């Protein structure tokens, strides 16, 4: 072979099988192609898919999940230096000459047999408390939104790596060739911290693994419908010709990328039928809207997106990423978080219940949480009725449900004032490793070679937190 072409992909058995349209993912396939290649991974899957209810902005754990009576007792007093220990603050409160502790405006109670602590802001979530696994000892490395959310979803604070959903699509493949394996739903009309398409980008993975955003309104997926005057049959013919043209380069350098392009064209064509079907909520019965709340009737709300998430999950989508912005309460926290909770509490709980009655909670992992937590001290002026909290990466809470997660568990513990973790810390990479483990993937082995090194979601970190697994 000429030196010029020695990077031409050889026609391997693997390639052959892939071309037959089995829709098998890269990693998983390798074991079937060459069973002797690798040692047993000791990972037995519990879940098939993830619904990630991402709460962008950093929901305050103090008003929702992490009950801290000591903060209530010390309300208005200065955050003791013995607790802070000189750790860095953001530029937003670093200059404040006082850091007064702020009690939660909302009362807490224990719920369910598990006795999980939840605030009065989450009455619906409280009803399903026994289904949930609360992690109170999450911690992250980033202190500002964009690096933190990028870190959470791609494993790196610097943009450009594949998103979690892309890794899963790449690793596990799709179960429904008519829909993307990775779908993204964003609550409409929310302000706050911006979201970028790179948060669901494929990075260096083949482009068919990127997340596809579904919107509310006329065109759920942009550029999917035929232009005026072009019929479906014409579009089909056009794509067939395009495929023939593409195929002229079969086996040539770069063929893998051309193949990826062909796959996307064809997926898009099939989505012309499948997307309207999945987006059509008119045939959902009344009791479903009772369950998810009236909001669910209005496309683009968090409630409607939760319902859509269930419909996508039913149709075999691997990773359904919801985003709900607006949790960044530097000031006006009580009013702000109350509104946020009203929008998310009932639909999130409804999703868990709905999945459960359909028998899907056993193989669907639901995650509810943001990119970091908030400080125990007040940002700005502390009054009886109003206060704010700054970003806090050292500890925050989230919950998970289903998919092999241990239900009724509250894992980890923060100190009395909720500033640092005192027991069982869970790093973002640990969470990623654990979620992948539940999906049957060894996070250390799902890698992609790019620019001379093998990349993985958890970089060189991450430990599976076994106590979180049922």
């Amino acid at each position, binding site marked *: 072979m000429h030196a010029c072409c020695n990077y031409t992909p050889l026609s391997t058995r693997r390639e052959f099988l892939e071309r037959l349209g089995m*829709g098998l993912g890269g990693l998983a396939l390798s074991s079937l192609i060459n069973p002797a290649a690798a040692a047993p991974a000791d990972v037995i899957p519990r879940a098939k898919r993830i619904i990630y209810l991402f709460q962008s902005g950093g929901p305050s754990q103090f008003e929702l999940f992490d009950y801290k009576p000591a903060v209530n007792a010390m309300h208005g007093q200065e955050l003791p230096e013995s607790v802070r220990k000189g750790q860095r603050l953001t530029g937003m409160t670093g200059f404040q000459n006082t850091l007064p502790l702020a009690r939660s405006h909302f009362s807490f109670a224990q719920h369910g047999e598990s006795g999980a602590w939840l605030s009065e802001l989450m009455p619906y979530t409280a009803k399903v408390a026994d289904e949930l696994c609360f992690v109170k000892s999450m911690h992250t490395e980033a202190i500002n939104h964009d690096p933190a959310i990028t870190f959470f979803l791609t494993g790196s604070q610097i943009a450009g790596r594949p998103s979690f959903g892309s890794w899963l699509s790449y690793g596990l493949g799709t*179960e429904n060739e008519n829909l993307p394996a990775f779908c993204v739903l964003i609550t409409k009309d929310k302000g706050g911290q911006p979201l970028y398409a790179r948060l669901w980008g494929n990075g260096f993975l083949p482009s068919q693994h990127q997340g596809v955003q579904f919107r509310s309104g006329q065109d759920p997926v942009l550029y999917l419908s035929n232009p005026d005057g072009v019929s479906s049959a014409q579009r089909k013919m056009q794509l067939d010709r395009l495929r023939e043209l593409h195929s002229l380069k079969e086996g040539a350098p770069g063929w893998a990328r051309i193949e990826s392009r062909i796959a996307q064209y064809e997926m898009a064509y099939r989505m012309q039928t499948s997307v309207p079907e999945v987006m059509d909520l008119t045939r959902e019965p009344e009791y479903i809207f009772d369950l998810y709340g009236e909001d669910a009737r209005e496309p683009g709300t968090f409630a409607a997106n939760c319902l859509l998430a269930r419909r996508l999950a039913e149709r075999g989508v691997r990773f359904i990423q919801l985003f709900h912005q607006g949790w960044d309460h530097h000031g006006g926290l009580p009013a702000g978080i109350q509104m946020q909770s009203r929008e998310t509490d009932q639909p999130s709980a409804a999703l868990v219940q709905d999945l459960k009655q359909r028998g899907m909670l056993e193989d669907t992992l639901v995650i509810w949480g943001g990119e970091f937590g908030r400080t125990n001290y007040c940002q700005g002026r502390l009054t009886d009725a109003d206060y704010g909290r700054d970003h806090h990466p050292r500890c925050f809470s989230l919950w998970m449900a289903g998919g092999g997660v241990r239900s009724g568990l509250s894992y980890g513990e923060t100190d009395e004032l909720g500033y640092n973790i005192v027991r069982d810390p869970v790093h973002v990479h640990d969470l990623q490793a654990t979620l992948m483990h539940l999906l049957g993937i060894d996070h250390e082995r799902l890698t992609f070679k790019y620019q001379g090194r093998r990349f993985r979601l958890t970089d060189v970190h991450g430990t599976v937190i076994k106590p979180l697994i049922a």
Partner: protein
Amino acid sequence: MKQSLFWLGVGLAFVVLMLVMVPGSGRPSDFSLFLGRFHPLVVHLPIGILVVAVLLEALSRMPSLRGRYDTGILALLYIGVWSSILAVAAGLYLAQGGGYAAGQLAWHKRMGVLVVLFASLAYLYKVWPGLSERWLRHWERRVYGIALGVMLLAVTLTGHFGGVLTHGPDYLSRYLPDGLRQMAGLPKKADIGRLQLENPAETTVYAALIAPILQSRCTACHGPDAQRGGLRLDTPDFITEGGDDGPPIVAGEAHESALIHRIWLPVSSDKKMPPLESPQLSIAEAELLRWWIDAGASFEELLPEVEWSPVTQTIVDHMGLGEIRTGIFALDTVPPDSMDIVQLAGLGLAVTPLAENEPYLQVRCVHPETCTDAGGLQEALRPLARNIAWLDLGRSGAGDDLVEGIADLPHVTRLHLQQTLVTDAGLADLGDLEFLEYLNLYGTAVTDSGLIHLETLPALRSIYLWQTGVTDEGVRRLQTAIPDLYINTGLSLTPVEPDTTGS
């Protein structure tokens, strides 16, 4: 010569006397233990001396050297006999201290006495060649040779058992190259210290981890051969029963358990166990015992049920316990053939491996219009029958005729039949799926009478029956048949109090 024979007789009588006099129980005096400590010193004398005697005798077989060394051999045998008598005596004192594996100790003793006997016999023939001329005639030379041979063999074996007692059974083979280890039927070097369990899913923690520790560290003195302090630690019953000082363990409370106290005592205490001269517990072994007692000291708990502590997790990970494989994952199933997968995928099913390096597949009917051709589908499933673990026919056109074929998929653990045309008749075929854990029937026409077929499913853990014809009565009946089963019949909404938060 007669004098030397006399003293030899005295020596042999001494050994016999020692064997009779030294009983196995009772605490030996410090002085006898002190004498015992000379065993390792004395023991190497007869080994070297007797081996040299044999070597010189072998050299004497060369014509040019015939008879040259006879005097020397005679002297060596004489010293060899006496030093071996001393070694045996010291050894018997040493053994009184206890802590040695009974079986190996018995063989060590037997072989040691054999050395004395055959060394003496060889000496007698050497010193008095005509000894048995009358009744053995020309056999005498051979008797001498045989005596030397048996003596040499006994020296070797005594030495070997002695080494095993002192250094542990794998001392010699520890650094044997892997190829030779395999020829000797030993595990590879990398596997030393790793658990080799036949069926870890059904092995108790006690059998896998605890009993081996007690076996290697305790039962030599607290077992079938000796019961120091009236205590045996070789069976659950004996452990529970305890000895003269009561039960050695208090379940759930390691810090109250004498077993743990004794392990933790400083070496200066004569109550320290195992005694100073015996092989000691490793820190990992001590920690496993402590953890096991704190966790309730169960003799029945199975490995898959265990909640490891971080430390014990680390220990058992290193021992190669890994994740306990249960159910179908404990089976030795042949991986599927890729071509069969292609065939199945061609019918519009999504076929994905269950996990990397597992032979099992998850199969899903993607569209309502697929999975209607029961015959064709069954045909395509057949070659993969043993590989299909998760089968999702939910929301498809599957009917009873297809379900009939599922009965031939022995390893199905999760079966989705929700929103299909399946009826009670179809359920009749599912009764033999021994690994079926999950069954989703929501949105089907099944009724109470269909559920009766499921009562025999041994592994069934959860079943989903929302929007079916099943009544409360049917649910009750199924629950009675399988008490641990999770039965979901949909959710009844309880109203949430109106939002009263805020000011």
